[in-house]
């Protein structure tokens, strides 16, 4: 926080200069309408740096991954790998400050890197990175979902990550081209009230919830981005007709519409509804906050069903990154045992690196057969949004 504040004060002074200059700049800006001319010199430097950067520290990080996680606050096992980095790093984060600032601070302390994090909405951040083009001040894009990473990667703005970093994470949770890597996993789940239902009552496929026995017992949040990605997955896997029929079926079953996942989980706990479609960690957070037991559990599909989608929050390094070494150190740290433990314990997500224990209340990732889908394909939300509107849900 302190570093942030000093930054902003310096910027106040810069702002005065900036304001004076703004009026002068405007005509120039309007005049040079030139476009996205990729100053492609940046890319080769980036890759060569990435190559050198991966050398010594890589081995330490991988070996650290094998050791069981210790206390996140103590001196991390991976510290020697990152301890000597120094310099600074700019992260554009679509993940909120509430969720990741603590682990970012740990990285800064461990590596001596001064980390500047810009927080914002994942999709808007992606749009900003695309607009900045070759002039982006960002080194890293840390996104809430794989779709936004895919959109930035498609415009050639993400650089290939070192193989040893990519290899820390299973292939299904990273970019097929090695342009981004998943940091933590977020499974789609059916949250159900344990006083009304038992696990065996959950139908074999999420598509079966259109059965009239579920009339007036369900809840969902059609405006939620994760839900929309899940619908996109159904579209990609089973086709638009199936997806539309499913949406209409659930709607006709009188599913109650909620603003967000938390509200669904609360409604299930209160017994207002019997079950709802959510991301797994909302219940985990409420369980952790409640301290005791709550009458609700997650059911996570594991049979390759469209309902068995596991999306990731992930990160990629920009081709224009000026701080390649620090950027790689950052991603390496996020995949280190202490950071992965942080995501497992504090944000209640799935750790994606082998050897880091998953919350015992969760079905381990190894037991979830996720549908065969490239997570960056979930970027194409537009048709999904249109379908949701057609069905009258948006």
């Amino acid at each position, binding site marked *: 926080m302190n570093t*942030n504040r000093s930054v902003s004060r310096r910027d106040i002074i810069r702002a005065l200069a900036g304001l004076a200059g703004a009026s002068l700049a405007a005509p120039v*800006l309007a005049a040079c309408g030139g*476009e996205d001319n990729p100053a492609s010199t940046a890319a080769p430097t980036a890759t060569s740096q990435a190559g050198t950067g991966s050398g010594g520290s890589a081995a330490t990080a991988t070996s650290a991954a094998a050791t069981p996680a210790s206390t996140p606050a103590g001196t991390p096992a991976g510290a020697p790998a990152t301890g000597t980095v120094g310099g600074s790093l700019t992260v554009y984060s679509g993940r909120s400050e*509430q969720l990741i600032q603590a682990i970012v601070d740990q990285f800064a302390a461990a590596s001596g890197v001064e980390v500047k994090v810009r927080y914002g909405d994942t999709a808007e951040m992606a749009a900003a990175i695309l607009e900045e083009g070759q002039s982006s001040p960002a080194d890293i894009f840390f996104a809430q979902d794989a779709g936004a990473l895919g959109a930035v990667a498609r415009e050639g703005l993400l650089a290939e990550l070192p193989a040893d970093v990519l290899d820390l994470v299973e292939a299904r949770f990273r970019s097929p081209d090695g342009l981004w890597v998943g940091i933590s996993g977020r499974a789609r789940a059916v949250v159900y009230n344990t006083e009304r239902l038992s696990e065996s009552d959950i139908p074999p496929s999420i598509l079966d919830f259109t059965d009239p026995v579920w009339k007036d017992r369900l809840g969902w949040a059609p*405006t939620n981005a994760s839900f929309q990605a899940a619908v996109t997955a159904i579209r990609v896997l089973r086709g638009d007709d199936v997806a539309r029929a499913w949406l209409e079926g659930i709607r006709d079953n009188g599913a109650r519409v909620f603003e967000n996942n938390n*509200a669904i989980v609360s409604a299930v706990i209160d017994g207002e509804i019997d079950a709802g479609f959510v991301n797994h960690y909302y219940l985990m957070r409420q369980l952790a906050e409640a301290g005791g037991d709550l009458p609700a559990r997650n059911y996570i599909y594991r049979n390759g069903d469209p309902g068995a989608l596991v999306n990731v929050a992930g990160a990629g390094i920009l081709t224009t990154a000026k701080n390649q070494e620090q950027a790689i150190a950052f991603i390496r740290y996020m995949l280190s045992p202490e950071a992965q433990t942080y995501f497992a314990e504090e944000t209640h997500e799935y750790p994606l690196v082998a050897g880091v224990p998953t919350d015992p209340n969760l079905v381990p990732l190894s037991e979830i057969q996720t549908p065969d889908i490239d997570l960056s394909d979930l970027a194409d939300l537009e048709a999904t949004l249109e379908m949701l509107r057609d069905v009258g849900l948006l």
Partner: protein
Amino acid sequence: MTTSGASMPQPTATPSTQPARASRRLWDGAPVPPLLVLPALVVALLMVAPLVYLVLRAAQAGPELFDLLWRDRTLMLIRNSLLLSAAVTAASAAIALPLAWLTVRTDLPGRRLWSVLTALPLVIPSYVGGYVLIAALGPRGALQGLLEVIFGIERLPEIYGFFGAWLTLTLLSYPYVLLAVRSAMARLDPALEEAARSLGLGPWESFRRVTVPLLRPALLAGSLLVALYVLGDFGAVSLLRYDVFTRAIYNQYRGAFDRSLAAGLSLVLVAMTGVVLALEARARGRARYHRSTVGVSRPPTRVRLGRWTPLALAYCAAIVSVTLLIPIGVIIHWLIRGLRAGEPLWLVWSAALSSVSVSLAAAVVAVLAAAPIALMAVRHSSPLSRVLERLSYLGYALPGIVVALALVFFGARYAPWLYQTLGILLVAYIIRFLPQALATLRAALMQVSPRVEEAARSLGHSPPRVWLRVTAPLAYPGILSAGALIFLTVMKELPATLLLRPTGFDTLATQVWSATAEGFWARAAAPALLLILLSAVPMAVTAWREGKSDG
């Protein structure tokens, strides 16, 4: 230029005899001081930046843009947007006119308090207002809870769709009309009404035929702000799920990551803005509204409400409860619920300080930027001044994300030294909100007689000196309310702040956003409450002052 102006006393006579013709001479070097034109042109150039960006981007879109535009759906969205805009504007005027009259022209008990309270809904951000309305009036919201206890009603009709969006936007934006009309009403010369009465018109007739036409510019200025605000709003319509044009634009950014199509759609929104502006221009006409004879206007006489007092009080109380008490009540409820659940009181004072200082700076800069355009529009009306004035509305009716991305584009590529500084943030605020300052200043200036300025000029003062020593003091209340309006709007601004702020620069609005994005309602409550309270201060002070000056 200034010396020639000062040495020629005659021109002052010309405009008063032939105002319309004399004012058209600007293009061929009529007496508009360059000191006015140059800054006005610079500001106008800033205003055009988003348009340039949109044209550049849209030019990259392929034929799919035309496919997108030529669908029935596009027509439906345009219709929905215009319908919502018209309905909210009409409802705002209907709420605001009686409120303005009651608080300015009657003996309503607690007039000044009411005039402060009824202006305050403006400080509630639409993204908070939308949530609150759903929480309060939703199918199973607080109202339903109350009705269930009393009448056993288990479910209220859905508020989603046109009705909810219309209600939210009306309740949050009627103060634009109220403020404009009220200050015009307070400065209205009662001699005109008295003359009408003395010529045999009844009270209602004289109100209709004299007062209302005199209020027309203020009514139009306020309505224009509401109409364009609604066209560009995304927060309320998305929460309340009414399908309008801005949602199509956001879907391109968020759903498809397609900036070219988004730009193409935004240009359609620009065209819609143009239509609204043209309508307003036609309605506004060329009339002049200052006194044309010597003399000073007195404070208006007050109508005695008598037995109507309880009804008037009930009306004010109803509006204030729905627009102010319910939202603040819901937020306090969230806060208490969170504190009970052991949530720490999440208040970062540095964010409050950032919010206040950046909003203050924006208020000052926006008023300074609006002044030359307003002076030109009122004192040296010409095709150029009208173009400049219209241009300033461009950024106002565009969704915040579009303006923000335009500045990301220009800033990152061509002005990296300015990018992600407070400087570019202030530029964004000016582009987004200048019309608010402009409309208020314009209305204030229209009621300052040029005779006074001409007198000062004839005594040998240069134009800038006249503006500073004569015009500004006379228009002082207008300048203050323009600043207050910008202040509170910037306090709650979100999309541009998120994308353009210096890294690590947190405001109360970004904190509310940060908490609500993850569904931490209790954590959003404290900064939201502080945001509302702090924004309310300048608003309350100006409204209170206004009450004093006519009381």
